[in-house]
């Protein structure tokens, strides 16, 4: 670690800056442009996932030997990417980022053999749909205590339980299912393609309609011994925390979109003979969005940079998520309010952001950085 890295610093590296340009261009052209139509259709544009391949997101951290780019994994760069993509559209950003989350988790816990078997699939020309199933459909879901269980039977495992809000969950050819291995602790299981006892159904939700999200149920799904990722346990807390950072970054991206949109709107919209931005109640609401947004981003950056340095970042992740979940929803709400009746109409994107931002408090287990 060089001397300069020990300073407090908010400067992006040259690489990060270049990458930011790429992400922003892609987000603007491919995500923002198509978001409304996809939201109305409740489905991704047919070629979106394939087109997202040009970003090479999943490829990056995969070792060159396995066909990847072999770029050292960077939680900081990942949250920067997540922000910029979500600035285009949160659902589509999730679609683009989900395979990366799978790759990251395989890199974190997979055995060498598993890495060799699975990771090259992400390095081809074709988009490889893979996802993580974490969240469970209970009002009292506690991410620290999973109710989806696996028990050892013979050499293999039997999986039971239900998962919800699984991005790309309908089409994924590879599922990493996070479950409680009875008597041993939390573990991840590799489920490939269709297996007996697994049912998938697309779910409709308040937001995130631009990405295919699924409910999964596992009814005595028999898995082979090789389905167990790595040596059998995962660091669940770390997994949750890494996913929190990605999720928060998505919230930052959408919130930035809100800020930009309302800033322009309130300056253009006139009432009582002046732009409505001349009213303190309007202007202060915009100022507050900017303040909380910047704070959200700084909290995410701090946690991600600690993660990147291998420092303990659990508290930072907990605080970032609490903060971002609350503020993002506040920003979403005020975004609609600032446009008044127009904000409630689907001709403007703020209502979609309102619906998507509610998910920041809900969507654990995605976007692992």
């Amino acid at each position, binding site marked *: 670690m060089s001397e300069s890295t020990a300073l407090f610093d908010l400067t992006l590296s040259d690489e990060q800056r270049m990458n930011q340009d790429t992400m922003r261009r892609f987000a603007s052209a491919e995500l923002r442009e198509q978001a409304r139509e996809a939201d109305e259709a409740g489905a991704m544009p047919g070629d979106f996932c394939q087109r997202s391949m040009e970003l090479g997101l999943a490829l990056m951290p995969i070792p060159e030997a396995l066909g990847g780019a072999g770029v050292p994994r960077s939680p900081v760069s990942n949250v920067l990417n997540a922000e910029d993509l979500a600035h285009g559209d949160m659902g589509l950003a999730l679609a683009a980022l989900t395979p990366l989350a799978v790759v990251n988790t395989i890199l974190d816990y997979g055995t060498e053999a598993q890495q060799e078997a699975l990771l090259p699939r992400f390095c081809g020309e074709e988009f490889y749909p893979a996802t993580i199933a974490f969240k*469970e459909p209970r*009002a009292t*879901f506690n991410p620290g205590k999973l109710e989806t269980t696996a028990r050892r039977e013979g050499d293999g495992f039997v999986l039971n339980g239900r998962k919800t809000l699984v991005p790309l969950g309908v089409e994924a050819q590879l599922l990493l299912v996070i479950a409680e291995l009875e008597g041993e602790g939390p573990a991840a299981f590799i489920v490939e393609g269709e297996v007996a006892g697994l049912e998938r159904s697309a779910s409709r939700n308040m937001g995130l309609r631009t990405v295919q999200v699924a409910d999964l149920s596992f009814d005595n799904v028999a898995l082979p011994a090789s389905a167990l990722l790595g040596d059998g346990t995962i660091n669940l807390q770390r997994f949750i925390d890494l996913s929190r950072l990605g999720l928060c970054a998505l919230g930052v991206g959408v919130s930035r979109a809100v800020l930009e949109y309302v800033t322009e709107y309130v300056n253009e919209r*006139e009432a*009582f003979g002046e732009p409505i931005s001349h009213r303190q109640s309007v202007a202060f609401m915009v100022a507050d969005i900017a303040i909380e947004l910047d704070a959200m981003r700084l909290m995410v950056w701090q946690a991600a940079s600690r993660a990147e340095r291998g420092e303990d970042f659990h508290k930072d992740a907990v605080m970032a998520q609490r903060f971002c979940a609350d503020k993002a929803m506040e920003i979403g709400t005020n975004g609609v309010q600032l446009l008044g*009746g127009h904000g409630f*109409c689907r001709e403007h994107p703020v209502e979609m952001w309102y619906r998507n931002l*509610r998910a920041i408090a809900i969507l654990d287990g995605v976007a692992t950085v």
Partner: protein
Amino acid sequence: MIHLELSAQHQGLQDQLKMVAEHMMRPYSRKYDREEHSEPVELAEVAKLLSGARGAGSNAAAGDKQEPEPGVVKNGGNLMSVTAYEALCWGDVGLMLSMPGRGLGNAAISAVGTPEQKEKYADSYAAMCITEPGVGSDSANISTTAVLDGDEWVINGEKIFVTAGERCDTLVVWASLDRSKGKAAIKSFIVEKGTPGCEVTRLEHKMGIRASDTAAISFTDCRIPKGNILGSADIADDEAGRKKAFGGVMQTFDNTRPPVAAMAIGVARAALDLCQELLAKEGIALDYAEKGVQLTAIEDELYRMESEWHAARLLVRRAAWMADNGQPNSMEASMCKAKAGRMGNYVTLRCVELCQGLGYSEEHLLEKFARDSKIIDIFEGTQQIQLLIVARRLLGKSSSELK
């Protein structure tokens, strides 16, 4: 004598309407949320049933004006109205807004119409046309015009955000007799649908209350009988007269704000009930016991929502009660709309969060409540407009001093 419970009569009505809401509205909530712009035909029966129940929260009742009688306390049409709106919106805000014969235009006709107008349009389904593309809260600045030509008014202009604008049969349209004379020249007119020159040009695609149609309507040399003006055609020529004239038009809002605030009470209650039902299935229930530091975060949040809900409801009932008893309630009407609007938004969004995946999913209605409730803090005067009205009254400021 201070007593803040509903009378037996009002409570009975609310109980009945909640049954109606539960059995005749809720079953269609999701259907018409998805099938935007299709007419909720099942409601015809409900509307028939309601029109049977005298004063059952019709908007006509909300416009009910009372002279104060010393020593006599009344619980009348206004309290009835907020009670009914609360119950029906516990069922479904969008469907309630689609109920034939219950448009906000009916309230306006009832409040300022002549006996003949009231009779003629008693069974109409009247929508209200105020907002214009360039004019939101700034109602004094509308550009739609009405010009007298012989025995007819000729109306020209464009209106948006007309609730039930497509399904209604009658429109109450705000228009200016003379744009150079400002707000004193703004009058409202009854336009029957089908009148040549009056055309629905667009239906809005909305985040919530999708069962309710929200229309854009254009008026092109639209001719209506001279008698279809609501109130006098005179334009006041002094400041006091001008203020009074526009005040009359604006007064409609004093009557309609408490019922609209009551919509937020209804939908927030719906969210609270469903949220607690889902939590109860997993063993979490509010018991109001003294738990000290053992109180859980989820209980804490439920208490907070419950108390905010009760607070808002009391403000709504107060405003309605004042109208029933001939007390000027313009400030209190805005107070309750401001409080209920933000409460509804806060509660419905938080209920989604508390139920996590179940809250966010379309399998349950919590996410719909959070979408529906947002508009209540916006239409019939935004949160910000209500605060402005309250502040001006409190501080004794004119609209030019406190903008």
